């Protein structure tokens, strides 16, 4: 090793996110101390972000199968069958910490990263959504963070040419020091042409494509799992910069090469860049990989093996090609003016061997790194059920209350946000943003996909189990409200520090609620992401299990939106109204209270009412449909009228 060999001590290990016992496990696996490159690799692969070590135990409880599921969690994205030989590939992922430090680039690279997870499986991205949580509007940083994040999402998504058609934006003080930016991408693929990441074929070439490697984002994976404190402002230089123009070229080049049979396996370089992609491809394929880092296209001079392996430069993919197909592939990437380099081979040693300047920079067994990754069964302290609300004084004249509610940050119209997103490119958007679920046609067919993201964090904070069930049920209801049949979900689990039992209690509770709703609604989880340590100075964000739902309608012309079409149409309320005010926006926005239990979720009623409403829509008897959620009936009717520019008369029965 050219530079002085750094003595690997527990402190150096800790700076890579490895606790003392975890470092001990590394030494046992290797039978010696790791060098700095090896330590960096273990630190990244065993970070919370890549290994799910605190959450895997609970994630296993989520239902992941249904007749229409082609591929569930474990690959780059989930895959469902929509008939006629077509499949829909989708996933959601978080970029919370980078977006707090540099909102534009943090959000932009979040959009770029989730799109790569989808087209790496052979799907053309056809819709993007974003679930955003900000601090209070009055907080000094909020305005700048909102502007930066929205410009970043638009700046990247619009340039790549994928319509940004849905999502949500809410505000609460618990996000003042730790905003949430969850990006979701939905793609369309041939069901018989899905690409996976398991490396195979001893001797096959390992190929690097896309942008050159720089020093951006080093420690990105580790940072994502590092708690924020006020000193985190100094971690500035680690933020990555996105190049949406190169991403557009990468999409076209990859999809063009995927028309041929040259690719055996492919994966995008996400968190921990070349490290996680090469290791995951090797461990899934049960093979070894040998890389010569001198062949990696670099943007900066004299990059070390450590920097090359942990760099999180954007817009890069790793592929295993069939032997002899390198030139065919090179031509495609050169047409699209992208870097292309064969940087190694698949081997049968079951080991990852990295060479740099003619020397072995790292020599690690692949299997133990994946199989012996630490798995924690962290202590759990379940959230106590909240006390009943009791009587609530009227907050004044109902009309005045309604106006205040509609003007509150969470319920105010978000046109200012999605007008900055190109939501019409690809000319298939049949339901534009602003309704319950947005809808894009399956190009060239009458079919269409309804997509939405939902979560009510205040419910999850008060009662994680009810909140988790409600988040899943609301996506199911929003998709149903368009006439589409909900098929499957992805999730982005944003929680505080898992080393605190009450946070693990929130996580476990939300998972239980999600499980019940998925089972009751035949609505499996096919992909997802976990983002922990969303906490500042020991104060966690409200538990936010963002749910991304996808549904299908066979004929887009049958779909309905929230806007009534003509005077004289009759407003019909489906479902029982129990006047529940616990954790309501009425309580919070008008009375400044955040107490009481969230509304209980009756999953059988949810399913019964939903199936009835969907049938009525498909029979053509419904002109408009809107789900009743935040703010209750009055807000729901008001939103329908605003969407149509009409009035409505509604009264209490009897």
């Amino acid at each position, binding site marked *: 090793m050219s530079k002085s060999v750094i003595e690997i001590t527990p402190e150096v290990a800790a700076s890579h996110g490895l606790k003392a016992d975890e470092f001990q496990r590394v030494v046992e696996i290797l039978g010696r101390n790791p060098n700095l490159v090896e330590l960096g690799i273990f630190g990244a692969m065993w970070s919370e972000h890549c290994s799910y070590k605190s959450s895997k135990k609970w994630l296993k409880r989520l239902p992941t199968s249904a007749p229409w599921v082609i591929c569930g969690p474990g690959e780059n994205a989930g895959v469902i069958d929509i008939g006629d030989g077509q499949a829909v590939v989708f996933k959601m992922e978080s970029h919370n910490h980078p977006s707090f430090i540099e909102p534009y680039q943090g959000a932009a690279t979040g959009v770029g990263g989730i799109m790569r997870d989808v087209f790496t499986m052979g799907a053309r991205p056809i819709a993007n959504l974003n679930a955003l949580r900000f601090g209070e509007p009055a907080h000094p940083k909020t305005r700048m963070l909102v502007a930066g994040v929205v*410009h970043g999402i*638009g*700046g990247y998504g*619009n*340039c*790549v*040419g994928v319509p940004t058609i849905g999502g949500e934006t809410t505000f609460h003080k618990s996000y003042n020091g730790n905003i949430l930016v969850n990006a979701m991408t939905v793609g369309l693929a041939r069901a018989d042409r899905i690409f996976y990441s398991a490396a195979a074929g001893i001797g096959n070439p390992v190929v690097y494509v896309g942008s050159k490697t720089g020093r951006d984002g080093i420690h990105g994976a580790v940072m994502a799992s590092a708690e924020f404190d006020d000193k985190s402002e100094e971690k500035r230089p680690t933020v990555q910069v996105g*190049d*949406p*123009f*190169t991403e*557009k*070229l990468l999409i076209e080049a990859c999809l063009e090469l995927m028309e041929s049979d040259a690719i055996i396996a492919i994966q995008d370089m996400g968190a921990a860049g070349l490290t996680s992609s090469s290791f995951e491809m090797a461990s899934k394929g049960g093979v070894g990989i040998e890389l010569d880092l001198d062949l990696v296209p670099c943007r900066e001079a004299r990059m070390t093996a450590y920097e090359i392996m942990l760099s999180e430069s954007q817009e890069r993919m790793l592929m295993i090609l069939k032997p002899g197909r390198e030139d065919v592939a090179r031509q495609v990437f050169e047409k*699209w*003016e992208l870097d292309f380099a064969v940087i190694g081979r698949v081997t049968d040693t079951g080991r990852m061997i990295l060479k740099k300047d003619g020397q072995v920079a790292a020599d690690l067994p692949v299997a133990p790194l994946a199989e012996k990754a630490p798995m924690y069964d962290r202590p759990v302290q379940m959230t106590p059920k909240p006390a009943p609300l009791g009587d609530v004084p009227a907050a004044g004249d109902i009309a005045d209350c309604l106006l205040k509610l509609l003007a509150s940050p969470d319920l105010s119209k978000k046109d200012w946000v*999605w*007008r*900055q*997103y*190109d*939501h*019409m*490119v*690809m*000319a*298939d*958007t*049949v339901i*534009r943003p602003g309704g319950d679920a947005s809808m894009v*046609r399956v190009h060239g067919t009458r079919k269409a996909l309804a997509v939405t993201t939902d979560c009510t964090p205040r419910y999850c904070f008060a009662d994680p189990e009810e909140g988790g069930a409600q988040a899943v049920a609301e996506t199911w209801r929003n998709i149903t409200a368009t006439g589409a049949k909900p098929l499957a979900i992805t999730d982005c689990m944003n929680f505080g520090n898992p080393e605190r039992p009450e946070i693990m209690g929130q996580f476990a509770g939300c998972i239980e609620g999600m499980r019940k709703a998925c089972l009751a609604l035949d609505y499996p989880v096919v992909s997802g992401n976990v983002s922990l340590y969303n906490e500042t100075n020991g104060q966690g964000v409200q538990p936010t299990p963002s749910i991304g739902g996808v549904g299908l309608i066979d004929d*887009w*012309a049958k779909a309905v939106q929230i806007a009534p079409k003509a005077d004289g149409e009759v407003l019909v309320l489906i479902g029982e109204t129990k006047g529940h005010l616990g954790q309501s926006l009425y309580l919070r926005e008008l009375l400044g209270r955040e107490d009481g239990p969230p509304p209980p979720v009756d999953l059988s009623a949810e399913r019964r009412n939903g199936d009835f409403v969907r049938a009525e829509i498909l029979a053509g008897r419904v002109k408009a449909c809107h789900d009743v959620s935040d703010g209750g009936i009055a807000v729901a009717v008001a939103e329908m009228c605003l969407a149509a520019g009409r009035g409505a008369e509604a009264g209490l029965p009897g």
Partner: protein
Amino acid sequence: MDAAVIVFPGSNCDRDIKVALAQSMGKEPHMVWHRDADFPKVDLIVLPGGFSYGDYLRCGAMAAHSPAMREVVARAGKGTRVLAICNGFQIATEAGLLPGALMRNAHLQYVCSDVNLRIETNQTEFMAKYRPGQVVRIPVGHADGNYQADEATLDRLEGEGLVALRYCDPNGTISSAANPNGAARNIAGVYNDERNVLGLMPHPERLSDAALGGTDGRLMIDSLVEALS
């Protein structure tokens, strides 16, 4: 009738205009890669919307130098019709096909929404199916649609009836409230002197299918296809 769509690295709306053209023409236009200068002889060339070269440096600055663009300028000089939509309009001004320049929107934000447009003249192949002064609803989607030129050029464009359409409110009044990007005199599209090249910021291909909420954009495409068939 035959048409060609030039595809630049970063073009996003090439497929959208191909679908809209095929709807009217009954056959597909040629999709021409920006490096190919010798594409078939056609009656209509379309420069599509998108972010050619990422809109880096200036929108359309780099695309204007593509081999295909040199051929487009040559053929336009000999009368071939050119429809330059959004990024295509920016490329056309950078390539000298049309006067003026498209600057950053006055409010500095990207804007994607339907806008009302007043058809200034229907005495061209591009607009034959509209009535003069007709108000149509067509979407825009851009961050740099703020058309500017020196006063003399603006006066000449208006004087010689070379302004194709302007942003207006639903009943056709030209107002600053109806202007989505600060464009001089609410100009949304202009012709070259010979009226065989039209550059406009709105996307007709985004509202030429009832599924998407309207068909006002289709009339422009049908006008062209009919006139050139």
